[in-house]
């Protein structure tokens, strides 16, 4: 069973992505967070419980803290835990800096443009 964590302050986008995942990744479970602090607390609880999501989908532009800052905070988690899953940045912006920043981070597997399509999801899960 694939576990997903969706972090996006846009509730509609979160809903769309949850539905897409649940429809096209059979047997998946999705947890949604609308704030970075909520997401970091959720991840800490996961670490404490000895588990970790397979995919963490992080929006870049969010209030309080952006997606990259969340990734920086995540670096404090044990590396053997971080290795269990993939971090994917979701971007609605077109800023080349975001792409460069995502590529430069060892924790970030990919940067994807929103909304996630069925084909993109399939490719993701098959990898």
């Amino acid at each position, binding site marked *: 069973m694939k576990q997903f964590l969706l972090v996006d302050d846009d509730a509609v986008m979160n809903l*769309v992505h949850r539905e*897409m995942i649940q*429809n096209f990744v059979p047997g998946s479970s999705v947890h949604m967070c609308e704030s970075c602090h909520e997401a970091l607390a959720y991840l800490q609880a996961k670490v404490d419980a000895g588990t970790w999501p397979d995919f963490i989908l992080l929006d870049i*532009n969010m209030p309080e803290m952006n997606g990259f800052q969340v990734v920086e905070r995540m670096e404090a988690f044990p590396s053997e835990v971080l290795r269990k899953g993939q971090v994917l940045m979701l971007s609605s912006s077109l800023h*080349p800096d975001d792409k460069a920043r995502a590529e430069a981070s060892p924790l970030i597997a990919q940067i994807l443009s929103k909304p996630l399509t069925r084909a993109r999801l399939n490719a993701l899960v098959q990898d």
Partner: protein
Amino acid sequence: MPEQTAYKELLRDYRQLQLRVTQFSRVEQQLIDTKDRLDQELLIYKRMSEFSALALSGTDLQGFLDTVAESVVGIFELESAFILAGPKQEDGQVDWLVGCEGMAVGPATLQETLSDLVLIDRGTLEEPVDLTPQEGLAVLGTQALMLHAHASTDRLEMWLCGFISKQSLPLYPKVESRHQTIFSVFAHQVRTHVANLAQAEELSRKNAELQKSNAELDQFAYSVSHDLRSPLLAIKGMIHLIQETEQTSVKVTKYLQLADGSIERLDKNIQEILEYSRSTRREVQCEPTDVASMVTDIFEDLQFSHEGEVQFSLTGPASLEVHTDPLRLSTVLKNVIGNAVKYRDPAAEPSWVKVDLRSDDGQLHIQVSDNGMGISSVALDHVFDMFYRGTTKSLGMGLGLYFCANAVEKLGGAIGVESEEGKGATFTIHLPHATPLLP
């Protein structure tokens, strides 16, 4: 008496001789005076020429003012002189003056002409009073008159000062008419130089302001595009979700397609506006760039951007490095390759996009060809025009290829297209291996 006559003649000769000696010594004295005056003039002009050379060499403002003060000392034979400098005040007061030892210094009211006379109350810091020369001379005593030359720009104000007095005071030398001439030349040079310096300062300040507002505009365009696109992409996602997961009637399916198309167009418009705002302001920044891997990345990005299958292929060297602006080149390639995908022929089985890279004679040739819808002969001449849209199927505002042509030109290259309606299109981009510095 012959002796008496001889004596008288001798005496006359002697007196004549004496007179000539006096005349000669007077002439000698005149010559000495003239020589002294000429020496003095020479010294003044020498200092003036040193000053001019320095004024023209464009030193920093403070160094320049120090030199002016030094020159004032030389020309007016002062013990010392100084210049206080400061910006022009809102009330028209200036905080800087040329002064000399023993002279009172304080804010002065602005004077527009060269030879206005201002009364300085010696030893006090009271404000000077405007007087005519006659009135000024009438009150001479413990006071002296200051002759000033005025140099002014929008932001800076400068006075050069000399002094007039009836008797020669050690600290207030007489101002002679030739000094006034020098003064006016001096003032002119100072005015020009201060104006130049102020202009240079103004320019660098404006440049810094421009850079700042450019960065702010970039940030603004970025935020606006993000804030506009976010809800749009959520709607797009919602439509895809319905299309993918719900059984809809033929009518609703059609409506959803139309809605999706409208969103696609709006999104494309936003992207083009952002692209336009970015590309027109950003300077060309070159670095070693691997064009082959850039193309591969674009293929990857486009993989999931559309329905149906498109075959991407790249021929040429596996790695091809040129010295160019990667952001501009990738924008161009994304546009051209993206167009090949967007305007593919639905009837084609399968659709393909081929990119060929070739390098010769210091030039890079990139060829992007497809088996898409092609471009009509009418549209072909205008595809690179601003706001030109070739077909009703065009997305966006008709800026994409305009940017491309613009960007390629900035990179010192050229772009061209060959196409026939219904038979695909081939875009060719020629770029120098190293982007030349364009004016």
